[in-house]
């Protein structure tokens, strides 16, 4: 596969390390009363859709950026790729 790196353009997927569901960005607040439940969900309960999936890829043999890649797991079509740090900052602003 080819990953459309937002800074570097199309790069072979072999340069990347795959992590999984991008919901890992949403780490729960450890100080909240329901932290134990929230962390259980965060660590163990993730969707595994046959279809469009936002997932984390690390450009290990490249610029060491973590990317959020939106990929259709049925066709391997890649719909979007963005820097995770930008997305993480954005979601913080929204919250």
């Amino acid at each position: 596969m080819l990953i459309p790196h937002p800074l570097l353009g199309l790069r072979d997927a072999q340069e990347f390390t795959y992590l999984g569901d991008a919901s890992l960005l949403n780490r729960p607040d450890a100080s909240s009363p329901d932290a134990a439940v929230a962390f259980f969900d965060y660590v163990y309960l993730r969707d595994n859709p046959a279809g469009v999936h936002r997932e984390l890829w690390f450009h290990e043999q490249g610029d060491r950026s973590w990317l959020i890649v939106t990929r259709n797991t049925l066709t391997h079509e890649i719909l979007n790729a963005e820097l995770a740090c930008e997305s993480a900052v954005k979601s913080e602003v929204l919250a």
Partner: protein
Amino acid sequence: MTDLMAITALGAVAPYEFQIGGLVIRENTELALASLSLGRGQGAPTILGTSMPDVGQWLAGPEVSAFWTAPNQWFIEGEGRAHEDFAAIVKAAAPDCAVTEQTDGWVAFDVYSNDGFKPLEGLLEKLVNIDLNGFGVGTALRTGLHHMSVYLIRRSDTHVTIMGMRTFAAALCHALESTAVRLR
């Protein structure tokens, strides 16, 4: 000046050199390196007259060169300055930036062609999975090579530097040499 004797990344006294066909592969043991990272909100500095190049670029300056390695991060190169405390020099020029000594983190192989880019192209397409169409002079990138991580810098039409992690030097050297031999 220390009385300890430095050795090359390949464990030798003299730098490695290998010539075959139109290609020369030469280890550059005198290249000083320091990484420079910007803190949040900082602007890119100018180091000894060299400004920090754009994404994926390498830029030669009067005293030092620099290439982009990651968002807000560059490697600064000091040719012939491997025996100096190069990181301290860079840090002095950019006191607010995070500077890390990298000189001995890497082994640098300069590959020269005596016949334009073609022989280099022939070598690189056997080694790295990058589109050489987009690898013009002044390009710097990181990619995988035989399961190792390398930086590639296109310094001129006929000169490419391949940098690998120092402890992988022997394996990288073998990859370059054996591939060059197989090209004939």
